[in-house]
């Protein structure tokens, strides 16, 4: 459902040109739980950003369910991002001025739905991630793990084609990290396609496939079959 063909990304850093990705090609099937690994600076996050439409490739092509992400207008790309992709960031990226239920509702609010209509769904998603009692709390009143679970609920509310997670446990302790991974695994078992960036092999083991990047290029592509963990 996600296809990347010879995608490259280069950007300028001062006077130098940095090639973050070089001619990367691969496919992700529906229902896969793909982990992207590699050392620091290998281009993992850049790859994820391209898949998620947060950034555009310098060259090459990217498709989600047959729809191109390259060469389209910013508004079209934004709509795809809003309706087809769910993001989970390393630093949570919740809006501090909104409550948990409002943060979860954001993508649908951007679509113009009235809050009164969204709220029951948002509460439902929060209950699914175990935060039914914390719906009116603001991020400053939540723990790191709770914030990440709110972020997961937000990512799921639009029933996205793919869930993208960039080091989702990078700011969490091991116990909480375990909980988050289990949650992601359950989602995948229910059919959710997930792409996760991680530097931790134990985290990658929760998935069904691992690709490794080195110096911006694909170096390994290993299928784990059913969940290895």
């Amino acid at each position, binding site marked *: 459902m996600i296809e990347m063909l010879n995608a490259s990304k280069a950007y300028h850093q001062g006077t130098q040109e940095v090639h973050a990705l070089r001619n990367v090609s691969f496919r992700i099937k529906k229902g896969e739980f793909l982990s992207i690994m590699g050392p620091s600076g290998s281009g993992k*996050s850049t790859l994820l*950003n391209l898949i*998620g*439409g*947060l*950034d555009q490739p310098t060259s090459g092509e990217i498709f989600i369910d047959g729809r191109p992400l390259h060469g389209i207008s*910013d*508004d079209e790309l*934004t*709509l795809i*991002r*809003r*309706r087809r992709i769910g*993001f989970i*960031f*390393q*630093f949570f*990226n919740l*809006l501090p*001025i*909104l409550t948990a239920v*409002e943060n979860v*509702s*954001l*993508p649908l*609010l*951007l*679509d*113009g*739905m*009235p*809050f009164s209509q969204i709220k029951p769904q948002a509460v439902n998603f929060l209950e699914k991630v175990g935060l039914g009692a914390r719906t009116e709390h603001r991020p400053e009143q939540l723990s790191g793990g709770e914030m990440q679970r709110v972020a997961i609920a*937000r990512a799921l509310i639009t029933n996205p084609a793919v869930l993208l997670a*960039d080091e989702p446990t990078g700011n969490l302790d091991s116990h909480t990290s375990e909980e988050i991974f289990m949650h992601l695994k359950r989602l995948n078992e229910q059919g959710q396609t997930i792409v996760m960036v991680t530097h931790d092999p134990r985290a990658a083991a929760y998935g069904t496939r691992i690709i490794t990047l080195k110096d911006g290029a694909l170096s390994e592509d290993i299928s784990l079959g059913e969940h290895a963990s």
Partner: protein
Amino acid sequence: MNLTNLLRHISLKHIKLQKAQTFMAVSGICLGVAAMVSIGIVNKSVLRSFEDSINHITGRAALQITGAESGFPEGMLDRVQNAAGVEYAVPVIETNAKLSGGKERSLMILGVDVLQDNQIRDYSLTDESADIPDPLLFLAKLDSLLITRAMADREGIGLDQQIQVQTVEGIRRFRVRGILNPEGPARAAGGDIAIMDIYAAQMVFGKEGRIDRIDVSIARGETLDAVKDRIQAVLPKGYSVDTPAGRTRQVEILTMRFRKSIGLISFMGMFVGMYLIYNAVSISVVQRRKEMGILRALGATRGQIIRLFLGETFVVSVVGSLLGVGLGVFFAKLTIGSVAQSITDAYLKTSVVELAPSWSNIVTGVGIGIIASLAAAAFPARSTTGITPISAIRILPHAEDGRLLSTRIRIASAFFILVSILIFMAYKIADASSAIRSTATIFWSIVFLLLGISLSTPVFLRRFMLLFHRFLSSRLGAGGRLAGLNLQKNISRNAVAVAAIFYSVTLFVSSASMIHSGRKAMLDYIDSVERGDIIISSGHPMAVGGAPNIPMPAEMGKEIEKVPGVLSADPFRKIYLNYNGRRVLLGAFDTLGWMEYNPIMITEGGRKDILRLLPRQDNVVVNESLAARNRIKPGDFVVLPTPNGPVRFGVAAIVVSYTSDSGVIWMDIHTYQRHWHDRLADMFSVRVKANENISAVREAILDGIGKKRNLFALSAREFKDEVRTMIDRSFLVSNAVNIITMIIAGLGIIVTLLASVLERTREIGVLRSIGMRRNQVSGLVIIESVLLGVAGGILGSAAGILIGWINLEGFVRLDYGASVTYHIHYASIGWALLLSAGLSALAGLYPARRAAKTNIVQALAYE
């Protein structure tokens, strides 16, 4: 729908959370709208008071005939009455007087034909007056007067009571024969009006054989224009046949220059308010960059982000504008008295009874407030298109915002300055009678210049900071070094705060220099035309302008000369007449006597020409502005309307005179008396004999002649003090707006520095962790604040000097003559720099306190 969601769930929370920023944005637009609304209300109230007075007195008159201000022969009445289509033609004397004894109060006297006037006007007497003696008895008693119920109540005057009124003949007693209900003419002039028989009015006001106006009603079936043409045909040239509405329009035109100048000031106030909005939105964009990145990552389009900021601005502007309307009404109440007095000093009596706020004022104020705010927010809102979804993930290294340093901005700045220069050059080379020679042209030249200079503020700030860094920073320690570097990091944003200070300092310095130049020119001029030791007038100490005045018989000069110690007493008479569509001042004096001791500033021709050509002859001198406007030079002729028809006068010389902004003509008083049959004087210039005590002579004059009249006897110094007071009063409104703009600029600095402090939370945490004390942190912020203020002050002072000169050209020289020279008011520059630095230091206190209170641990974890 989307916007409502975003506004409700995101914007409103920011508005509530960022109280200081919201307050400042609301205040900025509130003050800007208040300035516009208050001045709009004041202007409208002044015009409404004129209109009301004219309409109440007009009654059923469809046309009004006026001539020379000194009155015209009553014989014209028959000509008008006999014109076809005229139903009734009634004569009117309309003049000023003063209620004497106790609290003095000026009032309007209406002298009417008691037998006929009810055909045009309705008079309703109070019940107690119902037994008024029949009109013939009223006629027979020349001391009969009707006053209004309002005046009777205010002054505690009853029926049949005697009151003292200052007239041309001195203080006279009149008996109140009736009290008028507040209807018809009794509602004019705020009730400060009295009715007397026209014959009695002619006698006591020195208008024997003359009337001021003829009010005409039209026969049924006749058209207004046809009757107007017929009346005009039977009258000599120089008489005006107009509708009451036309007279109101004349008054509007007369006071337009003054009203426009205060209107321009309000525009500048709004401009500064817009800067505050621009500042607040720019800072909000920077502070919420991460949040916007998250929204973009989640699927908010660029358009939605732009509309979000504009929507927030809309909400703030509606609140600010509505508050501004209320504040504007309050300001109008505070300033209406001064404005009315200024118009009275310069043009004609104005008594504004009540404010006239209207829906159009309010709607215009709110509308302009909202549109100006949205326009101000548009540029920073549009800059959010540069916020990428990636910024949600990456903590981007701080990059200097070079947006306002771009080549395009520099080119735009140079372009605007060039346009300003071209407009000004067009003004200078245009003919004096051309439409380009107007205050509007000067206004646009100034606007473009201000735009051009403000766009160059970032470049100036950068250079200023480099200079500071090179010469001063090390003397201020670590705080000084860091302050300079911090300000350079975000030149664009800091330049906006500097620009707000620049605007307010420019206004301050330019108006101070213009006032200083105008005041100096006026005082120098008075020195040249008024070297008398004592100035005698009645009714108002400033009998030179449009102030209501009660003339005195010219022969009174001989009486004054009999007072021991008096060397000479020279009369001066002034009236207004129409010349080439403008109301110009005609001044008459005894040329030989006056010029013996007054040097008079002459620009073309010479003293010898004036002394040879003026005394008792049909020659005049005109002032520079009138000469320039009408292309007159010595040797030319001017045709002036007199009561007996137009007369040709030769022009002997061109002189300097600032008495009227519409133009001044001088002639010998004997010539004036011959043509206008008017033997009155508005003022006497008295010379005291050598070795005599001036104060003693003054007292002797007041003891003698002053007992019969209410005279003002001012020494030359006191007279000049009155002139200074009059000039300062006319600039009260602009001074008030200057203060408002300075306050707004100060608010802009607070907002800028707060944002800067928030952005540097981590940096401040690091500085504290390595040993910077709290007071060093706050000192750092205050130094930044003062630097912003000083930069704005320097730029504003330089621009203010230039714009003051341009202002003088467009708002003073254009109307008063090219001889007004420009004098820079250096004290105001010193004050401006002190104020801008001081105000900025004050503005920096709150952000400095916030910075000093930064929690180190939290700051180091901040991102």
